[in-house]
């Protein structure tokens, strides 16, 4: 992100000092005029709510307007002592671990397989990518039906093998797993596509050179392909972790955070504290605590990636 942002506006003519000043003013006007439509939206719908949320987090504001006024750090203290907050945070981290690993590893495997150049390539690409285009609601409708304990396909197939039906979304032991499977199915297409694109940008000559050196397929994979993909993997990992931490839609709709809060994500808890529990101030405080976590994760990733590329 350190690319030069000061690309000169290429007016190479010689100007007097006065003209220079005028030109500079003109540039500033032009620049702001171009940036204004974006900047207005950016300020109104991001900067203002972010600051307003920070203010709310120090108040007792509610949906109904019942409580108001500053309460200092009370909301933050409450949040840190709230078992549901910690549980939702734990669920979110657990979901992030469970989903990120297969979403990175499996998407790479799929991309490698598709990139072998086997026949029917468009079909493979279509199959893995298509779910990514679906709205979360549609994904959940499909999967609720798949997971249906009595009528669903999965238990139907299990029954054919004589296995007992599983309450995929109601059983506290498997609910999170079910949510992860659905997420994997839904979102793997994006990572898959990035890997596929990156694979095709590896220069052909490298393989040829390696082949001349007598390197086998697997050697090529580990000595050329995977190292070449490192920047892509770093990017995918970064995007994936941040996306998984923000999970809400599919869990909210599949299990509503249940059974017994076992799958409730932190974003859902923010939503519930604010809109179901009416406590806007409290909800904002949790948002900010979570935001701190996100910043820490982002910084850690940035450091890791920088160190690796420096090495």
């Amino acid at each position, binding site marked *: 992100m350190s690319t030069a942002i000061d690309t000169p506006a290429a007016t190479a003519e010689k100007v007097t000092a006065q003209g220079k000043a005028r030109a500079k003013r003109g540039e500033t006007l032009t620049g702001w005029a171009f940036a204004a439509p974006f900047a207005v939206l950016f300020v109104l719908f991001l900067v203002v709510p972010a600051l307003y949320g920070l203010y709310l987090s120090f108040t007792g504001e509610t949906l109904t307007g019942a409580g108001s006024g500053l309460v200092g750090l009370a909301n933050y203290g409450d949040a840190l002592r709230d078992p549901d907050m910690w549980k939702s945070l734990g669920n979110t981290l657990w979901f992030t671990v469970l989903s990120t690993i297969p979403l990175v590893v499996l998407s790479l495997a799929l991309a490698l397989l598709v990139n072998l150049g086997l026949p029917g390539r468009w079909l493979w690409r279509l199959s893995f990518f298509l779910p990514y285009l679906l709205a979360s609601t549609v994904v959940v409708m499909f999967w609720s039906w798949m997971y249906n304990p009595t009528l669903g396909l999965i238990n139907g197939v299990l029954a054919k093998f004589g296995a007992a039906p599983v309450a995929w979304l109601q059983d506290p032991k498997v609910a999170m797993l079910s949510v992860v499977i659905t997420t994997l199915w839904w979102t793997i297409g994006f990572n898959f596509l990035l890997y596929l694109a990156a694979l095709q940008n590896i220069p052909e000559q490298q393989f040829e050179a390696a082949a001349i050196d007598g390197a086998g397929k697997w050697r090529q994979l580990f000595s050329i392909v995977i190292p070449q993909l490192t920047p892509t993997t770093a990017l995918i990992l970064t995007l994936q972790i941040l996306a998984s931490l923000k999970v809400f839609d599919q869990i909210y709709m599949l299990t509503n955070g249940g*059974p017994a809060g076992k799958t409730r994500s932190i974003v859902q808890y923010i939503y519930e504290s604010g809109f179901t529990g009416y406590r806007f101030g409290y909800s904002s405080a949790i948002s900010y605590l979570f935001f701190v976590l996100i910043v820490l994760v982002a910084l850690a990733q940035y450091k890791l990636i920088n160190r690796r590329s420096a090495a």
Partner: protein
Amino acid sequence: MTDLSRRGLLKAAAALAGGGLLVGCAPGASRKTTDLSYWHLLTGGDGTVMAGLVDAVNAANLGFHATQTVLAWGAPYYTKLAMASAGGRAPDVAIMHASRIAGYAPGGLLEPWDLDLLAEVGLHESDFPARVWEKCQYDGKLYAIALDTHPFVLYYNTEHAEKAGVTDALHAMKSPDEFTEIATKLQKVTGKHGLSYGYLGDGAQMWRLWYTLYKQTGADMKLVPGQPAEVDKDAAVKTLTFVQSLLNDTIASRSGDGGTATSEFLHGQSGMFLGGVWELPVLKDAKMPVDALPIPTLFGTQAAYADSHTFVLPRQSKVSPERRKHVYTMVAEILKRSVKWAGGGHIPAYQPVAKSAEYQALKPQSNYAGIPASVNYDPDVWFSGAGSDFQNYFAENVQNVFLGSGDPAAGFDGFVARLNKLLDRPQPV
């Protein structure tokens, strides 16, 4: 040089601002006063009956037309309703569980009903059971008009009961031991389970059964914000232990979820079924030999968990008096037709219907018609009620007890600790 671009941008900005003016005329802003919007959360059999009632009232040409919007049951519905009321864009009338009024009325999210206007459409306090009418009040004002009472009841398979020779005992039992004995006898007849009860992952179901039994011991649960919860731990442990003893995979499945329990009972694989009255249509449709009873008094005091569907007036920023008048008429008309609603298992709240010969002829509905006299709603506090977190907290702490792996006392303590935490917080409404 910059002139052209600036002018262009100004034009673009003006266009955007012009677009902003469109905001004022959002669709739905100008409705006719004869159009009533009505929200509810009734689906399945209930939804079909309600749709029929709305159609019937619309067809009566009373000068208005009600359009119903059905939202997903539970927290999603109540969240949307609160958000709509907070924004002042609420529907003209909505269904709310009586147990949720304490969470809505104090925050100004509801408007009270006017007793004089109610009298004009023929509705009076005397038309409703006393306990139900009382629950519809908050702070001395009437915030809800009850449509029904829907308790948790005991269904049994009449053929199995006959075969096991327990039909009379079912009606007469007075102690937990008798219940266990009957269930064991029924288990021998069915060869699978004596009792079906689905609760896994469903806090509401756990709460309904346990609270019925807890209240039967004569114990109370008082929740007042700012004070610790007043509960009777001995009674709680006694009743939890009893429930745990039933879920032993012989009398009843240890890990039954709602769907499994219903289908088990439907297919004759158990003799009794603990469920809400709203399960009745499914059981009747299956043409199985079924009867229903209030949950027998096992711990000394007659008590039943129940809730009521009620009509409420969500807060609107602009109230049209004409439309409001139509709402009163609509509610009265639905209540007068509520014998249809009773077909879905519910006990009509409107007494002229509940006492009518037509309702008394409905079987097994009229078997449990007396329940409203001994009904127990959720404790009155802003965070309790149908589809609320309260029942989730119960599930989180007590599900292990039901599953057989948790200690009743520890589970209950966990629940009370959770309640105390909530009571300790400032009330947000």
